């Protein structure tokens, strides 16, 4: 930790967040090593293994095109369970509300949580609510924890990528981050960009039934975007990944908004996207299955694991050049989820 105080960048999902986790939070609370850090923990159980995960949501503004903090809080935790290959069973919800929050807003958020939970087929079974004085919070913060069950006997791990594996994504990148940013005060971008916030558990079932054990890792590229997530996988698996920029789907509106703001879509957050690392012989089948699923119609193979390595991620650019991909540094967009 280089800083003696918490900075906004510690919430970016990029390097400062990793430092905070690796240097402070994980050593104190759990002590697991970086290779074993995944989106949900697997717990010993009776039939099958349990997956357990938690996430907090502080997005600003709380309502944005295509979604709000409520469906985000459900989908985000459902997706973390799904990335561990688990079928979500139940969620807890912790609400931290700021004094003065209009009830009509709270109702809208709760209803969208319920709708998202129904869509994902998961129950909200326990919860807690606290209120802080005006000015001590910001409208509404939500924590959700989730429990799921893993019903197959292989494991999906960030350390599971192997040379030759293909990297698949289920659709265009950068929608969520740009939708939130475009709805912020002071940035009146006239772009029709909606969040991609969506539950991915059904798509994961499809992927696993098409690919089975050939699916080596799943990750949802939220904060820090596709770049940071692939960098995590490459490091955990000790491999080198090569991406093809021309294969990475980006909507024109997102590309344009990113160009105006000097952002790189590869580093912008997603909330309904997953990266699948799949053995080469199964990649075509998994891709076809993803494309048949409503959450994966624009799925694409965007790169491959080219060999053992020390965690390098390299991209062949549109014009045929090469550049290396690093983790998001500092804070690109605070409070994006």
């Amino acid at each position, binding site marked *: 930790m*280089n800083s003696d105080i918490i900075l906004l960048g510690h919430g970016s999902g990029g390097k400062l967040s990793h430092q905070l986790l690796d240097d402070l939070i994980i050593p104190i609370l759990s002590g697991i090593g970086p290779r074993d850090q995944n989106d949900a923990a697997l717990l010993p159980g009776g039939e099958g293994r349990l997956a357990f995960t938690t996430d907090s949501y502080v997005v600003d503004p709380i309502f944005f095109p295509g979604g709000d903090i409520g469906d985000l809080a459900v989908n985000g935790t459902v997706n973390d369970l799904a990335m561990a290959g688990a079928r979500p069973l139940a969620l807890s919800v912790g609400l931290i509300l700021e004094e003065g929050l209009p009830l009509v807003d709270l109702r809208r958020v709760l209803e969208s949580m319920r709708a998202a939970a129904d869509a994902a087929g998961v129950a909200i079974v326990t919860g807690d609510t606290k209120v802080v004085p005006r000015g001590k919070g910001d409208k509404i913060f939500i924590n959700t924890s989730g429990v799921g069950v893993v019903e197959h006997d292989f494991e999906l791990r960030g350390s599971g990528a192997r040379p030759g594996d293909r990297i698949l994504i289920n659709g265009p990148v950068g929608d969520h981050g740009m939708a939130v940013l475009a709805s912020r005060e002071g940035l009146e971008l006239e772009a029709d960009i909606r969040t991609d916030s969506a539950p991915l558990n059904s798509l994961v079932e499809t992927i696993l039934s098409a690919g089975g054990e050939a699916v080596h890792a799943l990750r949802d590229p939220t904060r820090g975007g596709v770049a940071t997530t692939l960098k995590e996988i490459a490091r955990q698996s000790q491999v080198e990944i090569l991406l093809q920029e021309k294969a990475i789907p980006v909507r024109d509106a997102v590309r344009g908004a990113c160009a105006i703001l000097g952002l790189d879509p590869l580093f912008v957050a997603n909330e309904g996207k997953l990266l699948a690392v799949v053995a080469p012989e199964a990649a075509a089948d998994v891709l076809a299955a993803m494309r048949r699923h409503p959450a994966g119609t624009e799925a694409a193979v965007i790169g491959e694991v080219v060999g053992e390595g020390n965690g390098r991620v390299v991209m*062949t650019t549109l014009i045929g050049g090469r550049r290396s991909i690093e983790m998001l540094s500092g804070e690109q967009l605070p409070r994006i989820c």
Partner: protein
Amino acid sequence: MTYTTEFRDPAVATRLLEKIREAVAGYSQTMTLMEVCGTHTMAIYQHGVRALLPEQIRLISGPGCPVCVTPVDYVDHAVALCRRPDTIVATFGDMVRVPGSTSSLQREKALGSDVRIVYSPLDAVALARKNPQKEVVFLGVGFETTTPTIAGSILQAQKERIENYSVLPSHKTIPGPMAALTADPDLKVDGYICPAHVSAVIGSEGYEPLARDCGVPCVVTGFEPLDILQGIEMLARQVVAGEARVEIQYSRIVRPQGNERARQVLYEVFEPCDARWRGIGVIPGSGLCIREKYSKFDAIRKLPVRVEEPREHAGCQCGEILKGKISPSECALFRTVCTPENPAGACMVSSEGTCAAEYKYGG
């Protein structure tokens, strides 16, 4: 037309690269082309342009990142201002993380100062309108591209009689340092990839003295990868032919005479003055100060504060990097002591900084 994909077409890029190779075929020396503007630096790294060029062409980065060339005492001044009671400091995002002598705006913000990131100086005027009991200081950093809008914000505040708005000016103009770098005997620049949007304001005519008097070819070039490749091709042809002309590659935006209306607004509010550039030193007439007539909007004159003694990070080689004399990996601090999370100098902070570009996209 989306105005992005068309300018990133791989097939056209291949053809342009062939033309570049054709242009330097048989040329036995190395030509050094400097991209002056930070946006070019970032785009060149982002698209991996260097690796595609023939070995006779070497690209170096110049002093065109406004945050990077801002001296450390400016950051200290901004820090001192944000510690004033009832003060809001409004700024473009990159300045927040630039290290000052002992603090940064990011640190002051975390400790309770009111520092706001805005996307336009007019948003800072709106902040002043909304918070009449507070003084809103906008950090006026930038080249000819941004300065007209900052001048516009002062004219707007004047028109609305907003008394609580001021600008801490550190504006700079581009042709001055280009002439200084051209005259530097240690640095042989064979051609300039001239800035795209600065040139939209000053026009290509601003570079005529460089071509005419110093014999250095100049090509005003756009920021998309195909623009950059075409700009390099045009420069390469001039260098090989021993010519030195000013050409416009970015003709869809830039006119030879530039944007007269923008310059009118700029010079209504600002006047040339000497300016200190990090790494280069004082260049006469290369800065823009607020005219006496608008002095009530000048934070330097309006809000006297005590600013600490400036102290640069020992070993930081931003200056040499800004002059194109060394590349980031030649600096001992690069990637070890100096990272985007813990920057020693501004070149590692700004999204247009050479060190940040090399760190992010690899050398």
